[in-house]
């Protein structure tokens, strides 16, 4: 017993500064590299973009201060900007279709039959593909004459349509391609959400006589709120970031009808006939403010969750 209690207590020694402040200092040491990287590559560039957006600059020579000139031109009737902006709006709204579609597939697959895991993975598959590949795949799918879509339409007796060649349809065609992986993403979110649905609530609802749609609407969906929230956030962000697909599928065409802000920005800044960095930066800033709206919403709801936590 005696040796059990001989305490391994260190003698009172004068401790170093680090030791005394260990708990206060450690987090900053751990944060340092991450913050450094992030600041250099993300935070500072955001402000640089703001700065650049007040200049005219071809990326090579001197920047020329033009004040709000770029914005005036941008918002003062730049048709490309208008087209891009409205296309972005289309993206925002139509991309959200991924949420109900994902939910639908998730409900369909939320069963326990043999091999269902494999089915779930296969349905999820498109999400893993690079957008470049998705874009290629769909542009072949849409080929005006040989595309599978027209082959199918032909069987039904409709078509042919040239989706990507028709300025009124092209954007929708690209969005549809984007919906493919995005739906898969939402599906997986909902599948995990469904796992977390409280079975007792479902049982309570069964006793309450809720069935089918009513069950879905009144009991299941409200419980899937967290999944819906995340799906909403990632879909919005995906919609606003859409670049790869447009670049691969139409390159903004036909005659600019599928541009969105992010693509237009790239085009103005870095493309073949571009190198108007200031103007591009101004577009990016506008896009940033649109996104900021959603970021703020996301952060706000996170903040609400964080309050009260440890």
């Amino acid at each position, binding site marked *: 017993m005696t040796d059990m209690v001989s305490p391994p207590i260190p003698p009172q020694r004068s401790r170093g500064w680090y030791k005394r402040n260990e708990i206060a200092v*450690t987090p900053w040491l751990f944060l340092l590299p991450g913050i450094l990287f*992030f600041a250099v590559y993300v935070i500072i560039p*955001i402000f640089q973009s703001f700065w650049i957006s007040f200049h005219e600059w071809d990326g090579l020579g001197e920047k020329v201060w033009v004040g709000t000139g770029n914005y005036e031109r941008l918002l003062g009737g730049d048709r490309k900007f208008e087209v891009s902006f409205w296309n972005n709006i289309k993206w925002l709204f139509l991309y959200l279709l991924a949420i109900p579609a994902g939910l639908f597939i998730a409900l369909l697959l939320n069963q326990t039959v043999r091999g269902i895991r494999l089915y779930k993975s296969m349905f999820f598959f498109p999400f893993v593909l690079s957008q470049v590949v998705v874009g290629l795949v769909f542009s072949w799918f849409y080929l005006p004459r040989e595309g599978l879509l027209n082959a199918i339409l032909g069987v039904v007796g409709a078509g042919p349509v040239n989706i990507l060649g028709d300025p009124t349809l092209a954007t929708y065609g690209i969005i549809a391609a984007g919906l493919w992986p995005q739906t898969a993403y939402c599906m997986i979110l909902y599948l995990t959400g469904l796992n977390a649905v409280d079975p007792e609530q479902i049982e309570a609802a069964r006793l309450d006589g809720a069935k089918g749609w009513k069950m879905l609407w009144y009991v299941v969906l409200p419980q899937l709120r967290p999944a819906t929230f995340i799906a909403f956030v990632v879909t919005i962000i995906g919609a606003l970031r859409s670049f790869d697909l447009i670049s691969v599928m139409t390159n903004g065409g036909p005659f600019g009808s599928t541009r969105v802000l992010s693509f237009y920005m790239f085009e103005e800044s870095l493309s073949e006939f571009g190198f108007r960095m200031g103007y591009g930066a101004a577009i990016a800033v506008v896009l940033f403010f649109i996104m900021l709206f959603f970021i703020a919403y996301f952060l706000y709801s996170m903040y609400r969750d964080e309050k009260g936590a440890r």
Partner: protein
Amino acid sequence: MFPTPIEKTSRTWQLTYQALLPVALAIWLLPLIAVATFSIKPDADFTNGNYWGLPSSFEFFTNYGKVFFESDMPRYMLNSVLITVPTVIGAVALSCMTGFALGVYKFNGNLWIFFMFIAGNFVPFQILMVPVRDLSVDLGLYDTKLGLVLFHVAFQTGFCTLFMRNFIRALPYALIEAARVEGISEWRIFFFVVMPLMKPALAALAVLIFTFIWNDYFWAVVLTQGPDAQPVTAGITSFNSQYRAAYHLMSAGSIVAALPPVAMFFLMQKHFIAGLTLGAVK
């Protein structure tokens, strides 16, 4: 669960369901199946307009052989590996540290720094494009794999921090207090107590970041050019311009480019899905 569990429904409906699944899957993956078929067709099928029929001959080896031996694809693939793997390691390592700091310690500004990471992660990355490109050029990192890696590490740190921090926060705080009472220094707590517990999160995050980075196209275009440094997503477009209108080769090339993340997905499925749901954001 919902809707009615299939085993509680009528036998006919069960059978219908089972029969319907493969059909639904085939429709869902139709574009992909089409490309896979393309990739084993001979050139002649396209000139003869046999786009959607069965391949008139099986040209798997010819087509894929061309991709592997007569193009830059292998070089691009290697680039992708050399970009993706260090990025994954770097981003995960950095975010373990930031996640630990933000998840464990209470200090002024904790939440604000955390929010900074999240907000940065959601920023439309186009706004970073011009400055980051200039920065890379200035540092001599333009058109190098290192340049891409550094940027990706930095940018992904936002997402990874969100992920790690939330994971660490969900660990029982008593574990850390117990260690403190035992006189274990903070960095040892990180290495010996927290890190071992983060293994599942590390795996999930690594898989996730791997696919994100592998599939990146935008930054590949902005920060690199040419087969020296460009990853396969960019490589595929130049491969395609080389074989413009040769659908069989383009399909084979696309499939090759898509293969690693797909393989990753199937091998690490559990982690992958865990990652998506743990982090639940991109």
